[in-house]
């Protein structure tokens, strides 16, 4: 075996370029697979993974310190079944005015603030997304998803806190965190300080187990010490997982594409390396190597650089996964995600096994040949594949000869060409799919009242719900809106809740009046918009309403519960995904459903194109005065995170596909180095050499790109409805019919771009190589 090792070592030294290509390709394939499997693994139960990683709290309890002493509270840490605990942390509930730089006005929010000296701990290990932990009183870290960022201010009474960081608790244990010493200053008679305790239990897998844990906790404390009911992580998990569900299908699609491309590239490079080494096997045989030694030496020749590639690929994959998994965590709205350990072990081993498996059959075949046969088959002219293509293309006088030479090249190695086509095809499918997904998500953003009606006007009575406007107030608002040149149109909005017979959930009813309900931006999946005529009693509902009530468009349905019931007719299905049952109707119908809601609470305003919503809101706010709150919507941060992730995944896959092309071209150049020398010797310029090599994959890339369009569109049309379904919604045709013809034409060039980009590096090297050097190549 030492002979085989020495032969393999010598072979690598003599074929450094090939060894480097194998190492780089295996590195890229391993890294991509680590990222892809990391994404796929995290798509399965991301909440549980984040929960485990952050030591999430099974139960979050709030203790009244006036009822339970500190020692009684801390004694609960030693209760049977408690495996870890954190606290007591001082906590306080406050009503605060939140001011975000760049956003006019301030909003009033109820916040639960907890005093912690650091983000870490045995339970609820917080992930600090931005900024730093408070170092002094007057500083605050807010929870992720609250819409604020460092630099914002939170005013509680006379206390002004500056937001210095953003953190994430996997079980949402607080809206914000301050230093423990700050809590006493924020507490008052009406909002006394409390103590937050966080627990992990040995048995916490089900609701009954959690209930048992809470019962033991309650029994260990004085009666009435627990404020409200302790919060179980199971409720948070249920809510989070329904948020995650819509995004899982596309991440699985991207992950699978990346895996397939990785496998294709590895198989392609290994089979190419074996083919290139057949003559050497013959030489080794002629000097006395046994077939077994030959097979071993050849497998080692491929496995040694592959081993280095696997190890480096695992490291690179983990590094590459950091930004992707961070983006993924934002999409899933969980604290932090990481590549599972089994992926770090399994992927490099699988990549090595795949490489060896790719080498063994060819090595066995070569090992069985006689020495002379192996030498001859390694040095003889290639089989006659592609001769006809060369002959026919040589007759095409309308194209430069360098181009026709390049176009004929793929026919010389049909199997390798097919592998390359497949790699480019999958890359181009990812680009088409990713572009479609981005267009669909853009549609979701556009088909939304926040975009269609970006400015809202309501009364400034924070903390008391949104009151209805009196007739005089409505006239004031209308006159100010009418006076603004930038006002396009507006709708009145009134919100109510209505119970549904037989269902535990109530439905939210939104009445838009004063204009066309289509101005809301909502898109109808089926049916039409409600009539605003008094007595029409028509409503539009979202898909979840239809599903949960067993109704369909055209059904009559009695809203309300108990004695007060009002029958409406469902005339349309609105695309409004989410966990809520939504009803949209006219103010007259809302008044009939909920007689307490007769006047609008808000005006939703559309503004002319090119006008900035915040500046319009500022103008309206100045005209109306402090009695009114004017808000401008700031876009969707969650969708921004999804779009970022889609872009990152698309680019990653396109780059890996390009690497597959680079590998094919490098093999082709190595095999045809002597021919390239001959071309140069008879007068082929570097530019012509470049054109010839690039054209050898450009056509392949173009074909792959064209085939990728229907494949990518098909994938998009398959995944988007699954995403909508996971978000409890049907989907309008406009959500899937997103590709404009010019966009499809452009996407058709994706394969060409991937192929040319992958080919340019090695083609440029071949073009620059001096003729005598190329001619010496064997």
């Amino acid at each position, binding site marked *: 075996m030492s002979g085989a090792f020495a032969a393999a070592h010598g072979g690598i030294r003599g074929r450094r370029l090939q060894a480097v290509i194998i190492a780089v390709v295996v590195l890229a394939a391993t890294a991509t697979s680590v990222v892809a499997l990391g994404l796929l693994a995290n798509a399965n139960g991301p909440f549980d993974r984040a929960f485990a990683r952050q030591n999430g709290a099974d139960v979050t309890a709030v203790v009244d310190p006036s009822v339970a002493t500190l020692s009684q509270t801390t004694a609960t840490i030693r209760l049977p079944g408690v495996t870890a605990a954190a606290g007591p942390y001082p906590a306080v509930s406050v009503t605060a005015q939140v001011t975000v730089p760049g956003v006019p006005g301030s909003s009033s929010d109820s916040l639960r603030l907890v005093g912690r000296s650091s983000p870490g701990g045995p339970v609820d290990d917080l992930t600090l997304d931005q900024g730093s932990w408070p170092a002094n009183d007057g500083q605050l870290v807010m929870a992720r998803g609250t819409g604020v960022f460092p630099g914002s201010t939170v005013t509680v009474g006379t206390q002004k806190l500056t937001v210095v960081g953003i953190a994430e608790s996997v079980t949402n244990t607080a809206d914000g965190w301050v230093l423990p010493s700050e809590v006493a200053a924020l507490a008052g008679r009406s909002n006394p300080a409390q103590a937050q305790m966080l627990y992990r239990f040995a048995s916490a897998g089900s609701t009954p187990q959690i209930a048992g844990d809470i019962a033991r906790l309650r029994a260990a404390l004085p009666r009435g010490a627990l404020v409200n009911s302790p919060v179980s992580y199971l409720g948070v998990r249920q809510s989070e997982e329904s948020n995650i569900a819509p995004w899982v299908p596309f991440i699985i699609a991207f992950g699978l594409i990346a895996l397939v491309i990785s496998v294709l590239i590895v198989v392609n490079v290994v089979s190419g390396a074996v083919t290139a080494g057949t003559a050497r096997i013959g030489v080794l045989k002629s000097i006395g190597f046994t077939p077994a030694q030959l097979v071993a030496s050849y497998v080692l020749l491929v496995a040694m650089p592959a081993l280095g590639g696997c190890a480096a690929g695992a490291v690179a994959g983990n590094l590459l996964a950091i930004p992707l998994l961070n983006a993924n965590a934002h999409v899933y709205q969980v604290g932090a995600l990481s590549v599972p350990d089994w992926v770090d072990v399994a992927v490099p081993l699988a990549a090595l096994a795949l490489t060896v498996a790719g080498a063994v059959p060819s090595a066995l075949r070569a090992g069985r040949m006689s020495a002379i046969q192996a030498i001859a088959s390694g040095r003889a*002219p290639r089989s006659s594949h592609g001769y006809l293509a060369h002959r026919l293309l040589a007759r095409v006088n309308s194209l430069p000869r360098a181009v026709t030479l390049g176009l004929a090249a793929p026919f010389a190695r049909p199997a390798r060409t097919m592998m390359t086509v497949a790699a480019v095809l999958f890359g181009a499918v990812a680009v088409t799919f990713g572009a479609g997904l981005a267009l669909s998500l853009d549609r979701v953003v556009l088909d939304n009242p926040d975009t269609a009606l970006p400015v809202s006007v309501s009364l400034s009575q924070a903390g008391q719900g949104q009151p209805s406007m009196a007739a005089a107030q409505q006239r004031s608002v209308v006159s100010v809106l009418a006076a603004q040149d930038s006002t396009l149109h507006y709708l009145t909005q009134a919100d109510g809740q209505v119970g549904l017979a037989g269902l535990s959930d109530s439905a939210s009813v939104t009445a838009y009046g004063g204009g066309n309900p289509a101005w809301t931006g909502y898109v109808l999946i089926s049916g039409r918009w409600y009539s605003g005529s008094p007595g029409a009693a028509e409503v539009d509902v979202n898909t979840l309403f239809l599903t949960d009530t067993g109704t369909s468009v055209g059904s009559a349905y009695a809203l309300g519960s108990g004695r007060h019931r009002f029958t409406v007719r469902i005339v349309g299905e609105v695309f409004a995904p989410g966990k809520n049952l939504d009803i949209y109707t006219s103010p007259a119908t809302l008044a009939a459903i909920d007689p307490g809601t007769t006047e609008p609470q808000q005006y939703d305003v559309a503004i002319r194109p090119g006008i900035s919503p915040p500046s319009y809101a500022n103008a309206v706010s100045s005209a109306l005065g402090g009695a009114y709150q004017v808000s401008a919507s700031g876009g969707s941060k969650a969708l921004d995170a999804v779009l970022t992730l889609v872009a990152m995944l698309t680019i990653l896959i396109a780059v890996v596909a390009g690497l597959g092309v680079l590998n094919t071209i490098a093999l082709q150049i190595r095999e045809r180095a002597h021919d390239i020398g001959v071309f140069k010797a008879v007068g082929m*310029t570097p530019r012509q050499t470049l054109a010839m090599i690039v054209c050898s994959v450009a056509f392949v890339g173009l074909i792959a790109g064209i085939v990728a369009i229907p494949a990518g569109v098909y994938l998009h049309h398959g995944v988007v409805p699954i995403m909508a379904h996971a978000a409890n919604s049907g989907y309008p045709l406009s959500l899937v019919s997103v590709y404009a013809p010019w966009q499809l034409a452009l996407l058709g060039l994706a394969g060409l771009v991937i192929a040319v980009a992958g080919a340019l590096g090695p083609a440029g090297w071949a073009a620059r190589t*001096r003729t005598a*050097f190329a001619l010496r190549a064997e």
Partner: protein
Amino acid sequence: MDALVELENVTKRYEGAAAPAVAGVSLAVAPGEAVALMGPSGSGKSTLLNLIAGMDRPTAGTVLVGGERVDALSETAAARFRRGQVGMIFQFFNLLDDMTVLDNVLLPARLAGVPAARARDLAGDLLSTLRIAHRRDAYPARLSGGERQRVAIARALVNRPALLLADEPTGAVDTATGEAIGELLRDLNDSGQTLILVTHNPDLAARYSRRVIAIADGRIASDTVLPSGETTPPSPPAPSGARR
């Protein structure tokens, strides 16, 4: 008459090599001359040929062909120079296996942008002259060694170069075929074609060239113009190792 090829103190040293492959060589070849570069393996004669063809660049010195500084040309300009000024014939033919005889011969013309019909006429004439026209649609693998070298000569001549460079043109064929190839080259030279021939065979050098330049260890050991009709060349110089 001005020299067609002029080398001035040319040195070529390969990276990592202890001694230069070509060391301070100066020579001139007039238009219409037939010159043999002769010497043992590794003496530097093929390197000299590559430098004249612009396929490699000297470490020092100047190479002029037809008044053009070949050593200073960019890769693109060198390729254009080869198309127009130089035809190359190699020991192992260097035909492209996946192209027919005709397509091999047409290649330099098509790369040079010669119109297809004109290139076909030129190639057809050459194949006829070289008595290989009947194999125009065959692939090189189907040809004998002599036929392959005739195809290579046709390819070298298709752009009507001023200079024909032949690197061991009979080294891979049998004696009879070698004789025929040699006759062909002499006929070309008789018709005015400048020829530089690399060989280690003194007999070939004497029979098919008018001047023999002996190369040893990268230097010119002798430069002999043979009297008309002489067939005994000067003795080839032995490499320095052999002299010791």
